[in-house]
C-alpha cells in the first residue's frame, strides 16, 4: 500500500497534475477572496474567510475529479492494472494507496491557502480579530469533503477505462451529493421529508462542521460516505473475478 502511495504521489508531480491543480485552486480562491468585488474581503469589510469556504466546495467539485480520474481508469486502459493485480497486493492495498495519494494532493492543495488566514489575522484592525475556531472547523470540513469527493472520483475512475467519462460522471456525482439533495428537498410535494433529504446531502454537514462545531454525527456521515464509495470501487475492481 505504501509503495502504491509513493508511486502515485510521484506520478502526480512528474505529470504536473499536482502543480496545475494547486495553481488553479490558489488562483481562483485568491481572486474570489481578494479581487472580485462581490466576494472580496476588502469590500466586504469583515475579517473572515467565509467567501473562501463558500467557493472552495464548488472548486473541489471540479478539481478533485481531475485528480482522481486517471487513478484506476488509466491503469485499466494501459493494462498496468494487470501488473499490480498479479503482484502480492490485495485490491484494498491498491485502492487505499490510490485513495491516500489523491487525498494527500487535496491536502497539499489546501495547505497554501493557510496564507489567507495569516494575512487576515494580521490585517484586521484589531490584530487577530478572526474567528479561529470557525476557520479550523471549516478546514476540517474541507478535508472531509475532499475525502468524500476523492472516494466518488475513485469509484467513477474504476467504472470506466475512459478518463473523460470518469471525470464527467464524478463531477456530476460530486455536485449532486453536495447540493442536489438540498434542491430536491425544496420540491413542494416532498416537503414532508425535506429535512431528511437535506440531511442526506453533503452541504448540510459541511455547513455544520464549518460553524466550528465538530459533531460526531457529521464525522460519521463523512466517514461512512467515503467508506461507501470506496467499497463500491472495491466491488467494481473485484468484478473481474465474477
Amino acid at each position, binding site marked *: 500500500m505504501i509503495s502504491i502511495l*509513493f508511486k502515485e504521489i510521484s506520478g502526480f508531480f512528474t505529470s504536473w497534475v499536482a502543480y496545475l491543480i494547486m495553481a488553479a485552486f490558489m488562483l481562483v480562491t485568491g481572486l474570489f477572496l481578494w479581487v472580485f468585488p462581490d466576494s472580496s474581503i476588502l469590500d466586504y469589510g469583515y475579517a473572515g474567510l467565509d467567501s473562501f469556504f463558500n467557493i472552495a466546495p464548488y472548486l473541489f467539485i471540479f478539481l478533485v475529479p481531475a485528480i482522481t480520474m486517471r487513478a484506476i481508469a488509466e491503469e485499466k486502459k*494501459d*493494462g498496468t492494472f494487470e*501488473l*499490480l493485480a*498479479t503482484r502480492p497486493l490485495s485490491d484494498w492495498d491498491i485502492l487505499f494507496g490510490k485513495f491516500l495519494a489523491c487525498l494527500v494532493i487535496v491536502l497539499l492543495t489546501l495547505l497554501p491557502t493557510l496564507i489567507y488566514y495569516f494575512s487576515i489575522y494580521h490585517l484586521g484592525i484589531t490584530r487577530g480579530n478572526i474567528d479561529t475556531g470557525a476557520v479550523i472547523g471549516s478546514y476540517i470540513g474541507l478535508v472531509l469533503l475532499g475525502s468524500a469527493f476523492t472516494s466518488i472520483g475513485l469509484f467513477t475512475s474504476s467504472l470506466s477505462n475512459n478518463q473523460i467519462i470518469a471525470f464527467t460522471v464524478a463531477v456530476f456525482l460530486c455536485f449532486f451529493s453536495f447540493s442536489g439533495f438540498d434542491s430536491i428537498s425544496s420540491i413542494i410535494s416532498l416537503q414532508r421529508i425535506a429535512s431528511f433529504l437535506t440531511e442526506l446531502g453533503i452541504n448540510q454537514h459541511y455547513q455544520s462542521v464549518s460553524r466550528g462545531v465538530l459533531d460526531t454525527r457529521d464525522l460519521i456521515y463523512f466517514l461512512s460516505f467515503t467508506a461507501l464509495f470506496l467499497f463500491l470501487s472495491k466491488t467494481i475492481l473485484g468484478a473481474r473475478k465474477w
Partner: protein
Amino acid sequence: MSIEVADLCKTYGNQKAIDGISFKALPGSVLGFLGPNGAGKSTTMKILTCFIPQTSGTAHICGFDARTDSMEVRRHIGYLPEHNPLYLDMYVRETLAFIGAIQKIDQTEKRINDVIERCGLGDEQNKKLGALSKGYRQRVGLAQAILADPKVLILDEPTSGLDPNQVIAIRALIKDLSKIKTVVLSTHIMQEVDAICEQVIIINKGKIVADDTLKGLRLKHNNKSLENIFIELTGSHVNQAQII
C-alpha cells in the same frame, strides 16, 4: 512439480474460453504454450497468475492453490502480460524499485543492478520507459518479472513485435533463465518453440490437442515440420488445403 493444472475450465457467459485442460511443468525447462489466437492461452496464464479465477478445476503453483492461496502464488511467479504493459512515465530504475518495494525484496539496490545487467539494460537504465524502443521495453518487462527471483516465470508472447535481433536476444535470455526456473511461454511463432522449448502444449478452442516433448511430438507425426503439425491439429481442413 512447479505447475500442476487439473481439469481447468473458464467460461465467459456461454462461451467456454478454456475447457478442461490439465498439464504439468517441471523446473529447469521451458514449456511452450501454442495455439491460434483466441485458443485460451492468455486466459490460462491469467488464471495461473491469479488475475482472474477459474470457473472450475484447480491450478497449483509451487504447491499453492491459485484460488485459495493467491498471495503465496503471486510471491512465487514472475509474469509478463501480453502487450507488456508498463508505466511509461516512470524511469527504468524507478519502475524496478517500485516493483521491488511491492514484492518486499531484500537488498533492492543490489538486486536491481543484477537484473539490469542480466537483461542488458545497462545503457538505458536512467531513461524514461516512454523513451525506450520496443525491444528495450520488452527487456524492462522481463526485468520486472524476474526481479523478485520467482521460481516460475509466465511469459505471454514475450517476443511479439520485436525485430529478429531483439528476438534472438530475448530468447537467449529466456533460455538462460530457464536453467534454474520453470518457464511457461505462449507464442504462435513456431521457430520460437523450436529454438527454446523442451515441452510443447498445443491448445485449440480451449482444449489441449497435444502435450509432448518437442522430439516426441515430431516422432508421432512422422517428422513433419512443427508448422504442419500445428496446422493439422488446430486448423480446419479447408484452411489447411489452402496453406499447403
